[in-house]
C-alpha cells in the first residue's frame, strides 16, 4: 500500500511539473493558462461518468443476466447501442444543448462519454454472471441463498474482476473519446463545455492555432496521465480483485525492468485478467445467435428510439413529408455516389486491417514466446493503447502535411496510420492471450516431432490461435469504424475556413452532422454502417468462427 502511495504522489509531482512547464513556456496562447483548471475538469468529468457507468453497468448487467425478460429485451438493445459510434449520439446531445444552456452542455458531455464507457462494464458483468460455475449456483440455492443474499454473497464477488477490468476499459475509452466530446462542431460553430477541458484545449491547439508544439506537449501530458495512472491504479486493483477467485492467473514474468515508474509498472502487466473479459464478452456477444424474438425486439426498440430522437430534434412528430424533405436538403445530393463512398471507406479499413493483422500477429507471437521481445512489446502496448488516437489525429496530419505538402494525400495517410494504430492493439492482445493459452500438450507434440521455426508457426501456432484472431478482428473492425468516421474529415482549421476531407462514408457522415446538421441523413448513414457491420458479422466472422471452432482444443 505504501509503495502505491509513493508512486501515486510521484506521478502527481511529475504532472505538476509538466503543467508548470507547459503554462510557462506556451502562454502565448492565453488559454493555456487555464491548463490546471481544464485538467481538473476533464478528470472529474471522466471520473463522474465512470462512477455512473459502473453503477448502471453493474445493476443492469445483473438484471439482464438473471431475469429472462430483461435478457431478451436489454441485451440485443444494448448491443445495438454499443455499435453506434459516438457521432451518432450527437443529434440527441444537440437536442439537450438547445434546451438547457450551459448546464445542458456539461450534461451532454457526460452523456457522450457515458455512451462510450458504459457498455464495456455491462457486457463484462453479463459475461461474468453467466460464467459462474453451475455447482456454485446450485449449492448456493440449495443452502437458501436467494434474492438479495445471493447477489451479495455470490454474484458481487464473482463479477468483481470483470467490473474492474471493464472499468479500466471504460476509463481508457473515456480518454479516447474525450477530445470528441469536449469540442463539438455543429453547423460551423463550435460548442465547448463552460468549465473547459483537456480535449477542448487540444482541439483548439490543433484545429484553431495549428500549433504543433503545443499539440504535442498536450498530447504527452494527456498520455502520461492515462498510462501512468492506468498501470498504477488498475493493475493494483486487478491484483486485489482476483485473489481468491478461480480464474486462471496470467502472469508475465519480467525480471528487473527498471526501477520506479512506468517500466516497473508495466512489468506487472496482467494481460488475461485485464482485457480478456472484454474480448470474450463483447465479441462473443456479437456472435451470439439472437433468437427471432430478440431480433424483433431490438428492431422495434431501434426504430422507436429513432422516432424519439427525430421528435426531439424537429420539435414535432416526424412525418414522412418532413423526412423526405430532409433527404432533399444538402448534403443529400451526394447520395448518388454512395456506393463509391462505401467502397473507398471499406478499402481503407481493409488495408489498415491487413497491416495491423500482420504486425500484430508477428508482435504477438514473438512477445508471447520470447521474454526479450515481451520486455519491449508489453510496455509498447500499454502506452500505445493508452494514447487517445483521436488526439493524435490533428498532430499526425499537421506533421504529414509539412512533409508531403499535398493535403489530400496527407489526410489519406493519416487515415491509414490512425486506423492501424487503433486496430492493432486488440489483435495484439488476443494473439498474446491465445498463444499463452495453447495447451502444453500441443507444444510438446511439436517438440517431439521436430517442428521448428516457420513450420511450427504455420502448422501449430497460427491454427491454434485462429478463433482468437477472429474475435480480435471483430473488435478491431468495430473500433476501426469508430475511428474512420473521424479520420476522413478534418474540421475547419480557422474560423470560417474550409474543412479538409477525403471521399468516403465517414466524411459524408461528418458533413451531414457537422456542417449541415441534417439529422435524418445522419441516421440514414448510420443505418448503412450498421447494415455493413451486421452483414460482415453474419457472412464473414460467424462463418470463420464456426470453421475454426474445431481448432479449439478444450483443456
Amino acid at each position, binding site marked *: 500500500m505504501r509503495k502505491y502511495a509513493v508512486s501515486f504522489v510521484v506521478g502527481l509531482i511529475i504532472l505538476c511539473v509538466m503543467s508548470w512547464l507547459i503554462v510557462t513556456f506556451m502562454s502565448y496562447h492565453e488559454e493555456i493558462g487555464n491548463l490546471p483548471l481544464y485538467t481538473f475538469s476533464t478528470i472529474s468529468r471522466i471520473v463522474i461518468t465512470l462512477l455512473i457507468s459502473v453503477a448502471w453497468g453493474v445493476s443492469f448487467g445483473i438484471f439482464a443476466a438473471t431475469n429472462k425478460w430483461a435478457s431478451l429485451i436489454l441485451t440485443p438493445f444494448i448491443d445495438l447501442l454499443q455499435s453506434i459510434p459516438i457521432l451518432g449520439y450527437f443529434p440527441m446531445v444537440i437536442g439537450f444543448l438547445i434546451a438547457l444552456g450551459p448546464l445542458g452542455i456539461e450534461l451532454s458531455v457526460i452523456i457522450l462519454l457515458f455512451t462510450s464507457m458504459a457498455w464495456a462494464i455491462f457486457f463484462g458483468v453479463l459475461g461474468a454472471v453467466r460464467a459462474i460455475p453451475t455447482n456454485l449456483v*446450485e449449492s448456493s440455492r440449495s443452502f437458501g441463498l436467494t434474492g438479495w443474499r445471493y447477489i451479495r454473497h455470490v454474484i458481487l*464477488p464473482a463479477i468483481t474482476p470483470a467490473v474492474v477490468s471493464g472499468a479500466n476499459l471504460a476509463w481508457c475509452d473515456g480518454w479516447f473519446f474525450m477530445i470528441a466530446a469536449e469540442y463539438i462542431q455543429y453547423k460551423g460553430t463550435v460548442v465547448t463545455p463552460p468549465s473547459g477541458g483537456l480535449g477542448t484545449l487540444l482541439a483548439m491547439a490543433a484545429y484553431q492555432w495549428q500549433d504543433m508544439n503545443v499539440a504535442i506537449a498536450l498530447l504527452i501530458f494527456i498520455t502520461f496521465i492515462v498510462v501512468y495512472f492506468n498501470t498504477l491504479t488498475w493493475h493494483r486493483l486487478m491484483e486485489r480483485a482476483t485473489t481468491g477467485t478461480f480464474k486462471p492467473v496470467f502472469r508475465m514474468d519480467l525480471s528487473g525492468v527498471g526501477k520506479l515508474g512506468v517500466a516497473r509498472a508495466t512489468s506487472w502487466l496482467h494481460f488475461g485478467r485485464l482485457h480478456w473479459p472484454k474480448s470474450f464478452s463483447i465479441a462473443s456477444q456479437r456472435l451470439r445467435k439472437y433468437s427471432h424474438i430478440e431480433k424483433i425486439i431490438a428492431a422495434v426498440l431501434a426504430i422507436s428510439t429513432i422516432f424519439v430522437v427525430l421528435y426531439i430534434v424537429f420539435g414535432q412528430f416526424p412525418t414522412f413529408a418532413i423526412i423526405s424533405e430532409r433527404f432533399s436538403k444538402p448534403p443529400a445530393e451526394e447520395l448518388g455516389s454512395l456506393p463509391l463512398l462505401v467502397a473507398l471507406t471499406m478499402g481503407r479499413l481493409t488495408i489498415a486491417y491487413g497491416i495491423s493483422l500482420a504486425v500484430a500477429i508477428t508482435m504477438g507471437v514473438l512477445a508471447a514466446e520470447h521474454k526479450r521481445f515481451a520486455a519491449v512489446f508489453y510496455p509498447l502496448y500499454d502506452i500505445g493503447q493508452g494514447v487517445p488516437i483521436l488526439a493524435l489525429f490533428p498532430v499526425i496530419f499537421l506533421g504529414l502535411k509539412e512533409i508531403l505538402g499535398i493535403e489530400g494525400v496527407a489526410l489519406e495517410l493519416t487515415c491509414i496510420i490512425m486506423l492501424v494504430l487503433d486496430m492493432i492493439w486488440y489483435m495484439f492482445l488476443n494473439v498474446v492471450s491465445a498463444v499463452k493459452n495453447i495447451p502444453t500438450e500441443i507444444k510438446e507434440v511439436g517438440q517431439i516431432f521436430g517442428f521448428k521455426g516457420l513450420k511450427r508457426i504455420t502448422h501449430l501456432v497460427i491454427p491454434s490461435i485462429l478463433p482468437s484472431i477472429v474475435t480480435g478482428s471483430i473488435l478491431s473492425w468495430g473500433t476501426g469504424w469508430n475511428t474512420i468516421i473521424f479520420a476522413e474529415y478534418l474540421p475547419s482549421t480557422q474560423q470560417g475556413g474550409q474543412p479538409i476531407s477525403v471521399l468516403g462514408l465517414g466524411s459524408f457522415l461528418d458533413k451531414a452532422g457537422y456542417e449541415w446538421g441534417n439529422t435524418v441523413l445522419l441516421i440514414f448513414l448510420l443505418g448503412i454502417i450498421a447494415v455493413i457491420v451486421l452483414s460482415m458479422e453474419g457472412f464473414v466472422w460467424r462463418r470463420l468462427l464456426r470453421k475454426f471452432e474445431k481448432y479449439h482444443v478444450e483443456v
Partner: protein
Amino acid sequence: MSVLEVENVTKTFTMEKSKILVLDNVSFSVGNDEFVCLVGPSGCGKSTMLRIIAGLEKADSGKILFRGQPITKPTPKIAMVFQLFGLLPWKTALENVEVPLEVLGIEKEKRKHIAEEYLNMVGLEGFENTYPHDLSGGMKQRVGIARALALKPDVLLMDEPFSSLDELTAKTLRGLVLDFWRNPTLPTNTFVMVSHNVEEAVFMADRVIVMSPRPGKVIGEVKIEISRPREEHLRDSEYFGLIDEVVELLEKGKNKTKDVSPVSLTANRANNI
C-alpha cells in the same frame, strides 16, 4: 415410516428443438435411519433425481414426499453435498460453513461456534481461515460435508461426492461419512447417495437402487445385509456376490430395449451365491 417417498416421477429436459426424457416413472422410498445408494450408468438421471429431491428441480409429473409433505423448494431439513464441492471461492472454509447458518438467522457468535465445531469434526481444525483455492480436493469436500451437516438436517443427499477425488482420499472420506451416519449424537440419520461406483455403493449402503440408462427407470434393488463396520468384510465372497448382483441388474438395464416394463419396486432378492 418412510422419510422420503418418490412416486412416479417423470422428468423431461427441453433443449433448443428436442426434448429428452431423463426420468421415466421412477418410484422408491427411503426409510428412517437408512443409507440408500442410487447406482446407474452416466446420464441415467440419478443426479437429476437427487436434485428433484433437493428441491433444485421440479418433476414434470409424480411427487416427492418428505415426511408426508410435498417438496417444492430447497429446505434446510434436506442438505446436499456436491460432486464439485460448490464452495464459494471468495470465502474461507469457516465462512463457507457459516453462510447457510446465516440464512437460518443464527447470530454471529453462535454461527462461528457451530462452524468451528463442525470443521473440527471433519478434521479441518486449523484450516478455518484458508481459502478453497489453497485446499486439496479432499479438504474441500470435508468443508462441503461440514457445511451440510451444520444445518442439522434430517436427510443428507450426496451427489457423487467422491468421484472428483483420488481413490485414497475417497476411501478416507467414505469412512468419515459412515462415522457421521452411525454417530448417535448427530441428528442426521438418513443418507441418500448417488454413485456410479458399484463397490462404493455396496460398501456404504443398506440398500442399493439400480437404475437403467436414459431414460432412467428403477431396474431393481439389492439389499446389502453385510454387518458393519464393513472394512473387515471387504474380502468376503458375500461382498463380491452382492457386487455381482448389482452389476447383473445394471447389465439387464443396458440390454433392455426401449419398451421396458418397469420392474416391481421393492423386490427383495435373496442373496445368490
